[in-house]
């Protein structure tokens, strides 16, 4: 009975309350003459009634379970940068000091820096001074940095440092870095860690999935017009200035260097820490390019091996 096909559609609409008045009249007329369709409509209505009746209340604890999990996941991703150090009483003073000193803080030894999550360097860049934050190997690059820094109070007491991220469990000693007192020129050695005015930094806690490849820079801006930029420590000028030189071996067929400490490794290059005498040897028998001499007194230099 192919004639019924058009009425099947109408039956469907009727069950769902979507049938027009006109179509309903047509359908009813047909139903009087067609027991099959009549029966189909009844069956459909019965099924529909049973199904709509089958709604249940969700179990207790669904909502709280969801919220608990969301909070748990949020907390885990809100990684914070641990910034240590004792500084002058005010941010402005620190800025002045760095300007006056006109030096970027050198880092003496990578080993020392590696023990910290990051190194923070104040760089004066007209007209916007810049806080540069450098990730150290102890830090997971893929995590978004949530920067929260503390201020030293006026009576010289040090505020608590920020919560330690998951990678590092043990408490760190807080080394005094910049001597107190503004306006003095200092050749500051050691790790350029400092605490800065909390208000100068905006904190964000976002959930990010670390699905992307490690970024080499993040940025977040503050309320006071100071730019914060986080980079890998290998990109830090100040970092490299602690070394004798930075040189590149451009020969990808040279293979990896063995016997030297790897400071960093990516898909395209490896950074090695190499004693100065060895670098001088390299200059004789390998193709060292892009050499930048930094610190004559350093015992080590950085050699960048390009792979790929």
């Amino acid at each position, binding site marked *: 009975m192919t004639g019924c096909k058009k009425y099947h559609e109408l039956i469907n609409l009727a069950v769902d309350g979507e049938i027009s008045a006109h179509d309903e009249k047509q359908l009813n007329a047909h139903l009087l003459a067609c027991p*099959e369709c009549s029966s189909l409509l009844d069956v459909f209505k019965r099924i529909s009634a049973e199904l709509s009746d089958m709604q249940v209340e*969700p179990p207790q604890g669904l909502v709280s*379970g969801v919220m608990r999990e969301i909070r748990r996941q949020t907390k885990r991703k809100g990684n914070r940068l641990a910034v240590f150090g004792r500084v002058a009483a005010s941010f402005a003073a620190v800025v002045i000091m760095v300007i006056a000193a006109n030096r970027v803080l050198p880092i003496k030894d990578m080993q020392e820096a590696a023990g910290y999550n990051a190194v923070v360097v104040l760089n004066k860049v007209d007209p916007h001074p810049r806080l540069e934050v450098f990730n150290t190997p102890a830090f997971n690059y893929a995590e978004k940095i949530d920067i929260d820094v503390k201020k030293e109070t006026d009576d010289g007491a040090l505020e608590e440092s920020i919560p330690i991220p998951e990678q590092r469990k043990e408490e760190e000693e807080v080394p005094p870095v910049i001597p107190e007192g503004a306006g003095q020129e200092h050749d500051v050695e050691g790790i350029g860690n400092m605490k800065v005015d909390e208000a100068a930094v905006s904190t964000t806690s976002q959930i990010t999935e670390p699905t992307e490849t490690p970024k080499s820079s993040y940025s977040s801006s503050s309320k006071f017009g100071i730019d914060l930029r986080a980079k890998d420590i290998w990109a830090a000028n100040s970092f490299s200035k602690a070394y004798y030189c930075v040189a590149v071996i451009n020969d990808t067929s040279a293979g990896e260097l063995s016997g030297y400490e790897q400071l960093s490794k990516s898909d395209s290059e490896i950074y090695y820490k190499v004693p100065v005498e060895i670098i001088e040897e390299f200059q004789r028998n390998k193709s060292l390019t892009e050499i930048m001499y930094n610190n004559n007194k350093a015992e080590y230099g950085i050699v960048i091996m390009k792979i790929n």
Partner: protein
Amino acid sequence: MTRETEMQIIKRVLDGHIDEFEALVHENQKKIYNLALKMVGNREDAWDISQETFIKAFKALKSFRGDSSFGVWIYRLATNLCIDFLRKEKKRKTFPLAYINDEKEEKELEIPDVSMEPEALCEQAELKQAISEGLKALPEDHRQVLVLREINGLSYAEISQVLNLEIGTVKSRIFRARSNLAKYLNSKGNFLNKKTSKTTKEGRDR
């Protein structure tokens, strides 16, 4: 909850007031749970899928643009999760019952092995049980539309939005889902008290 309220809550959550998401979960939990329950057929998995739906919604909240309502958006998340879940499920026994799919081909209805719940064996309970089983026997894309229509009470237009289908497709799938479910119920016994053997045969010839 109005659309405005929804958007306000979402904005506040994105600003960092995470706890406010709870209101959205509360508002939508019943329909999502029921959808999941009828799609996957058991409470434990329905619970897991419901939770996952909301957590996923939370994580993806910044990509919610507001051109559909939050409800439609979350239905979409839920149906996708249900379908993914069902595809991974391997344990099914098949009995040769035929149905007609969208391409007008005759296919076999797959009937999963379900254990009977210890309910009173009255006709009403038996009917409900049979309907639940019949639902599970439907192919997923038919089950989907029927559940959204009957359990969740969505209109044809809303269903087409959630599933990204033409309204015509929605209508024909609902029809086929109902027909196949009726066929299943007939095969299990005379639940509906109607002699529909003739219809069954004709359904196959079409």
